[in-house]
C-alpha cells in the first residue's frame, strides 16, 4: 500500500551541494610495515599461525581464527608463484567511466599461503581459473602495493 503523497515525484528539486571534506593518512600497522618493506625488496612475506598452521599472505598481527598473536613469529618468504582462483575483465572504473583499455583483475592464491590476494592480471589474452601466475615487479620499488605491477602467466 503506497501512501498518497503528492510530494513524491521525480521532478527536479532545489539542491544543496555538500561533501565529506576529509582525507586520510593511514598507518600501515605493525605487520604492515613488514609486508610493505618486503615488497620493496621484491619479496612476498607471509606468516604462519603455529596454533592452527594457517599461513597468511599478506601477513597479519593475529590469526583471526585462533586469535594467536603472530607478531613474534618468523616471517617467511613465499615463492613468486600463484594460482588464479577467479578473474574478471573490467570495462568501467569505480566511478562508472568506460575504460579505454579494459583489464583483468584476479584473485590469486600465492603458493604456500592459505589466503587469497587481490591484484591485476597482465600480459594475458585468455586467462583461466587454475592458471599459474607470477608477480611482475616495478623497476623502482617503494614499499607500495604497486611495487607489483600485476601478475602474468608463469
Amino acid at each position, binding site marked *: 500500500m503506497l501512501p498518497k503523497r503528492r510530494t513524491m515525484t521525480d521532478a527536479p528539486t532545489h539542491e544543496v551541494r555538500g561533501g565529506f571534506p*576529509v582525507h586520510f593518512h593511514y598507518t600501515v600497522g605493525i605487520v604492515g610495515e613488514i609486508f610493505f618493506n618486503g615488497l620493496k625488496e621484491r619479496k612476498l612475506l607471509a606468516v604462519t599461525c603455529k596454533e592452527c598452521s594457517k599461513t597468511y599472505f599478506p601477513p*597479519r598481527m593475529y590469526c583471526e581464527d585462533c586469535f594467536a598473536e603472530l607478531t613474534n613469529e618468523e616471517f617467511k618468504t613465499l615463492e613468486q608463484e600463484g594460482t588464479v582462483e577467479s578473474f574478471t575483465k573490467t570495462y568501467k572504473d569505480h566511478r562508472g567511466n568506460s575504460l579505454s583499455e579494459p583489464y583483468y583483475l584476479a584473485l590469486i592464491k600465492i603458493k604456500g599461503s592459505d589466503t587469497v590476494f587481490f591484484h591485476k592480471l597482465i600480459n594475458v589474452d585468455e586467462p583461466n581459473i587454475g592458471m599459474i601466475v607470477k608477480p611482475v615487479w616495478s623497476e623502482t620499488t617503494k614499499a607500495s602495493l604497486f611495487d607489483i605491477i600485476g601478475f602474468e602467466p608463469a
Partner: protein
Amino acid sequence: MKKRKVGIVSVGLTKFMRRAKETPKELAYYAAKTALDEAGITRKDVDAAIIGSAPDAFDGVHQKHEYLTDGAGGVNLPTMRGYVGGGTGVFSPIQGWYSIASGMHDVVLVTTEEKMSSVLPSAQAAFNTIFDNMIERPLGPNLVWIFALEMRRYMETYGIPKEHIAAVSVKNKGNALDHPSAMLGQKLTIEDVLNSEVLAEPVHLLDISPVADGAVSFVMMSEEKIKEFGISLDDVAWVEGVGWNVDTTMWTNRDLCYPKYVEKAAKQAYTMAGQKDHSPEALRKWLSFAEPYDPFNYKELHHLEGLQLFEKGKAPLAAYEGVTARDGDFPVTPSGGLLGVGNPIAAAAGMKVAEVYLQLTGKAEKRQIPKDVTRGLAQAWGDLMQVGTVIILKGGRVN
C-alpha cells in the same frame, strides 16, 4: 520476562596515544586479546562479539564494524556494531548485557575502538558532517563551537565562575597521572586552565580532551558461565542497571543548561537496579563513585546534574571544593577521564566502564579510591550531543 544476571569478568585496554603506529584492527586486537587473557578464556569460548566505534570518518574506513571484525574476535560469530556516537562506549557493554540477559548468549566479547589520527585535516572536519546538511553545515559548525554556546548558557544561568569549571580539568588531568593508558596526565593549577589558549569563548584549550587512538575490550558472561569457568566473584562486576535515551535531533532546540536525556537514561538505570529514591543525597550514598562523560570540563558537571547526583547548578562548586576528588566524599572520574586519559571516542567511554570495573574489583592500583566501593556508574554522551547512555555496576560479592 526474567532477565539473567550478567557480569563483566575482565577488561583490556591499549594505551591511548596521539598517533598509534597500529592499524585500527591491531588496536582492537590488543584490547580484545588482553581481555580474553585476563578472563582466562580463548576465542573458542566466545559466543558473540560486539563492536563499538564512532563515526567511520575518523578511522577512514566505511563500515568500520565490518573492517574491525577480525581484530575484535568476531569472525564466524554473531557479531554486530551498535553506534550512538560518543555514547557508544557505554552502549556497547549495554548491548553485551542484553545479549546475555535475554538468554541469547553466554559469553560476549565487547570491543570499543577509535583511531582518530587517521583523519585529515582534523577530527573537527569530520564532525562537521554530523550537522544538518541543509541549514547548518554551510556555516561550518564544529563541536567546540556548540560546546561554547552550551557552556556560556550554563555559566550564565547559574552564575558559575569559570574557576569552578576549571577545577574539573585540574582534577581529571591530575588523576590521569596514575592511569597507565593516559596520554595527558598533568599537574595543573586553575590559573593554567584559565590562561590556556582560547578556542571559542568561553572554551579554552585545557577545557577540552585530546583526540586519540585507542581501544578497550570487555568479556561479559552469564552468572551460569561465571560459575562454570570457576571465575572468582572478586573478579566480577555485575551489571545492575542500564539506560539510554535520545533527545530531539534539533540540537538548537534542546535545554542548554540541563541534559534531560541523561536524566531519563539515568532514571531508567536506577529503577532497573531497584533504587527508587532519585534524590542527590540518596543516590550519592547508594553509589560509591561515578565516571560521567567529560570531553569538556563543564560536561562532567552538566552530566552529574543530569544523573541526579547534584542539584541543578550545584556540581561546579562541589568540584571546586574537592567533593569529587578521588579521596573526596563522592569521587568522580577517578580514572582521569577523557580530559586526562584521552578521548578516542568510543574507546574513551569504554575506558570509563573499565574504570568502574577496575575500582569495584580492587584492581585500579594507584587510582584505587581510598574507601570501600560497592557500586559505580559510567555515563557517556553522544550522537549530535543528545544521547545519554548509563551503566551501573556493583561488586561481585555485593547483594
